[in-house]
């Protein structure tokens, strides 16, 4: 009886992690949409809508019971939007594999929906594990494309004269995206006919624990670095001094051009 109480308490704790994750995703989603309007940065609308769709999926699962296929569609669109965000944020005007990644994720998303429909019609181990493996591959590609792009960008700016809080944002995006990319791996270790979070099975609770902790880290990490309070920015910028030359900044256009000419002549 006591053991059962501990299990239920743990499940409640992990449920609260997931609820925090959903709240952070909804908050981030709304924040990104507001910032899209304010800053006219098109890339943000995609991650904003993507986050909202993924959180609707969880809300649907918890409260409404939308059905697994409908939930899968929401997640798939959310993931495709995340890839568009990555491409627009890091790869505009660049000739690299961005379109290949985009089409692979679309293909795998469609395949995932088909596998889900197949699984609802015919529940068997093959269908279940196929779905899990496909989910793992396309989640891995989606989030690690963001990880890779952010890491490449971070490598270029880490020694540049930028405010430290921006560099922290890059680093946190890298860490939390890697953590999220492995999320679908765990259900592979669970027998196919045992649902995640079933209190009767310890392995099921363990998988649920890791999933909810991963989600919590991603949700909170992403929210904190994107909706960063000014106080935190000040703390992260502590000790950073930007070399400014007030004399130059206050010059009129003609005086500035003269100064530039003088500096160029002095160098020759």
């Amino acid at each position: 009886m006591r053991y059962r109480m501990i299990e239920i308490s743990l499940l409640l704790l992990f449920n609260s992690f997931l609820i925090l994750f959903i709240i952070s995703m909804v908050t981030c989603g709304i924040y990104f949409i507001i910032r899209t309007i304010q800053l006219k940065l098109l890339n943000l609308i995609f991650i904003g809508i993507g986050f909202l769709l993924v959180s609707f999926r969880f809300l649907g699962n918890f409260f409404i019971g939308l059905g697994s296929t409908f939930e899968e569609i929401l997640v798939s669109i959310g993931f495709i939007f995340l890839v568009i965000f990555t491409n627009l944020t890091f790869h505009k005007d660049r000739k690299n594999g961005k379109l290949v990644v985009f089409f692979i994720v679309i293909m795998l998303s469609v395949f995932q929906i088909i596998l889900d429909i197949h699984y609802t019609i015919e529940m068997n181990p093959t269908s279940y594990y196929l779905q899990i493996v496909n989910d793992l591959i396309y989640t891995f590609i989606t989030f690690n494309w963001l990880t890779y792009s952010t890491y490449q960008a971070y490598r270029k700016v880490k020694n540049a004269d930028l405010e430290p809080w921006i560099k922290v944002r890059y680093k946190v995006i890298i860490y939390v995206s890697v953590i999220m990319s492995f999320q679908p791996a765990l259900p592979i270790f669970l027998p196919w006919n045992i649902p995640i979070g079933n209190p009767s099975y310890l392995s099921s609770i363990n998988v649920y624990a890791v999933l909810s902790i991963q989600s919590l880290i991603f949700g909170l990490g992403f929210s904190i670095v994107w909706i960063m309070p000014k106080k935190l920015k000040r703390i992260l910028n502590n000790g950073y001094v930007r070399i400014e030359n007030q004399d130059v900044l206050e010059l009129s256009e003609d005086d500035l051009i003269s100064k530039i000419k003088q500096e160029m002549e002095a160098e020759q």
Partner: protein
Amino acid sequence: MIEIIHYLANILSTEIKISPPAARGLIKLSIKDELGPFKPIFRINYTDLKNTLENSLKKRLNNLNVNDSDQIIKNLVFELTNNQSIIKIGNV
């Protein structure tokens, strides 16, 4: 946006051998030439800045008789494209 201007100005300053603040001033003047004085700096996007480098800054470098301005602009646009995330991550 301020961050990417700082980043590009540091590169420009080494290319044409002027101080980084003077290079920042030159880029800001070019932005004013290209987009007018009323566009808020936080509303300037990647395409605006790319056009600024390719048009107005190039003109200003030519007026200053900078050698090889084409190559300098090419390098700056390359750096902007590779580091576009500074605008889209650092500006939010």
